[in-house]
């Protein structure tokens, strides 16, 4: 069963990733960067909302030892800030939301690619 974790903001994201890396150094880590959800549980980013069920579905085919981390990058205004840390961090360098990354590889899916079940499955099955 894929382990599913959540992180909100950059600091928490870093902590969660390093914990997972330490615990399971050889397991695959998939990270979905999304616009943060508000009190109603809905993200402000419509593409992220669309992608979520697709990714949930594809996760059923992910390898058993994989970890999936859902990361909220903040509200709309903090994301639109060109100095948003998620945009600047050299390991992440986000350019759009949602972005799905296979951690430690060059494999990433950008915006509409995240709500295409075929491409998401390819990411998990690889």
């Amino acid at each position, binding site marked *: 069963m894929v382990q599913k974790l959540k992180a909100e903001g950059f600091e928490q994201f870093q902590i969660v990733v390093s914990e997972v890396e330490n615990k399971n150094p050889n397991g695959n880590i998939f990270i979905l960067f999304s616009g943060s959800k508000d009190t109603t549980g809905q993200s402000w980013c419509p593409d992220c909302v669309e992608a979520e069920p697709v990714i949930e579905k594809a996760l059923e085919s992910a390898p058993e030892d994989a970890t999936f981390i859902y990361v909220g990058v903040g509200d709309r205004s903090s994301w639109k800030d060109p100095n948003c840390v998620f945009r600047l961090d050299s390991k992440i360098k986000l350019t759009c939301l949602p972005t799905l990354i296979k951690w430690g*590889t*060059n*494999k*990433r*899916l950008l915006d509409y*690619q995240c709500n*295409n079940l*075929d*491409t998401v499955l*390819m990411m998990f099955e690889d």
Partner: protein
Amino acid sequence: MSTRSLLPQFFCAVERRLTLGIAHRTSCTKTVIRRVSYLKQKSVIALTRRHLISDIQGFIPCQRYTTSTMAPVIPKGDPIQIVDNLIKNNRIAIFSKTTCPFCTKVKELFSSLNLEVAVIELDTRDDGADIQDALLQKTGQKTVPNVFVGGEHLGGCDSTIAAHQNGRLEFLLNKSQAGPKAEMPDDVKYDYDLVVIGGGSGGLAASKEAALLGAKVAVCDFVVPTPIGTTWGLGGTCVNVGCIPKKLMHQAAILGQSISDAKKFGWDVPDSAKHNWHTMVEGIQAHIGSLNWGYRVALREKKVNYLNAFAEFVDPHTLKTTDKKKKETTITSKYILLATGGRPRYPDIPGAREYGITSDDIFSLPYHPGKTLLVGASYIALECAGFLAGIGVDSTVMVRSILLRGFDQQIAELIGSYMAKHGIRFQRGYVPIKLERIEEGSPGRIKVTSQNEVGELLEEEYNTVLFAIGRDACTNNIGIEKANVMLNPRNGKVICDEKEQTNVPHIYAIGDILDGKLELTPVAIQAGRLLAKRLFGGGTMLTDYVNVPTTVFTPLEYGSVGLSEEDAIAKYGANDVEVYHSFLTPLEVAIPKRDDNEGYAKLICVKSLNEKVVGFHILSPNAGEITQGFAIGLKLGATKADFDNLIGIHPTIAEVFTTLNTTKSSGADVLQKGC
């Protein structure tokens, strides 16, 4: 059209051939019979063969006609029409002159092959000169013989003989005999509409376009590891072991030059600035990795099935694919596209494969190559030597004879001398005969023994030996014989017509494996896209293989489009070619005071075509960027006057082309002095 109305035309054709004066009576009769059976095959004439032959035999006395008294069987009129008619109505059409020994040679060739030819002897007709002009317009070839086979322009004597030797002539003859292509039966169900073998630039372009047009498509791509075990992802040579990493390493070298220039522009750069091989390779490989992934995503998005498996023919419509785990699968396809590309060649000498590497390995080499020998004079050898030297690697190039065969030789030598001035050692006239490992390691030490023409031996130690002596088409291990696809026996390349169609109607080929075409990524992409549009989108456009611009990324880049000076002279004759040229010094190097007059520009013009520019050559920094734009001028038929009318952008290198006013024939000094 009724049988009756066709008959006079038919006999006219027979008569015409009989009047040619080159076919002997015996072979003549043979060819007549062949023509008859050909027509029968096409079911356009309902008469019995016997009946026809007896009628034809009645015509044999016509053989009394000779070329000198040749009746004007082709009516005088529009010379373009005359040319087109001869080409259209005859399998083999030759425009010739009775006095030309090369024309005789070509006619003898066809005669020896017992082939029927239709000839117009230009020197026996009043409108001969007009027809020759029409031929020049149509083919760009002014000289005779001018040979056409199956409607396709073959060229002069040399190209005809070459076509006979490399299988192209046979290919065109078979094709023109086959008549209209039989439609593939619709009731056969295949797994795919199109299977592409090879996921390089051309294969990917074709597969994506075909899928967009609704075809069911699969791409088979499998990288056979190099002898030292290097392998890579989806995308083919360009992305993984060619253009992309090459240009990035070229950039690394240019930055090195810029760092030393920077001091002269006031930057406080420490003298200790050193290059780190690992950082560069990691950066480049990370970029390539993201491209590999991007291609896979693109295929998946367009519903192209990507099979990471080695494909080989079982029969013309069936392929066996073998994946990394040796699992075999059989797939069938209505159309099959060969896009397998090429791989570097190793010389057949002891130690080459064991201790040598190639361009397939250098871009991901996990260790600094150390002192490096590059064997070969190809653009790949020179580019690799250039960037290696540029990042501080001790580089030697071993060259058997000339540099950059096939490219403009004046520029090739200028490239060589520039590289020699910039720290690259050349060993001309030598070929390696043996490699021996002296010490293992990363890199180890290799003793290279080489030999010159007179048998003198040379021994030297290197850390890395890179072979760049040529590339071979990957057509020898895909069971191509089971599909009966014709290859040029000399180079293993696939013989195709202008539609990239092989002799097997449902099998096509594009990219580096195409015989007689250019080995360039954008050419393959264009061919792949247009082919897919023709197969699945009702397209009619053919890939235009003429005037394709290209650039060699040596330290000083060399951009060209059109003909080399040698080829222009061969095609138009030295008297009809005018070359305008100038050396040049980019403004940017004036401050560091280096490379004075190392750049060079020339335009090759044809006098009789209103000084139409048929060759454009530039040796300078950023030559690729300069050449791309000017190429459209050549495609549109720009003349020297058009270049003169163009206003330059100051200060640039490219502006030199707007002010070229010294001809090479004048012998005047073209060294640039001041602004």
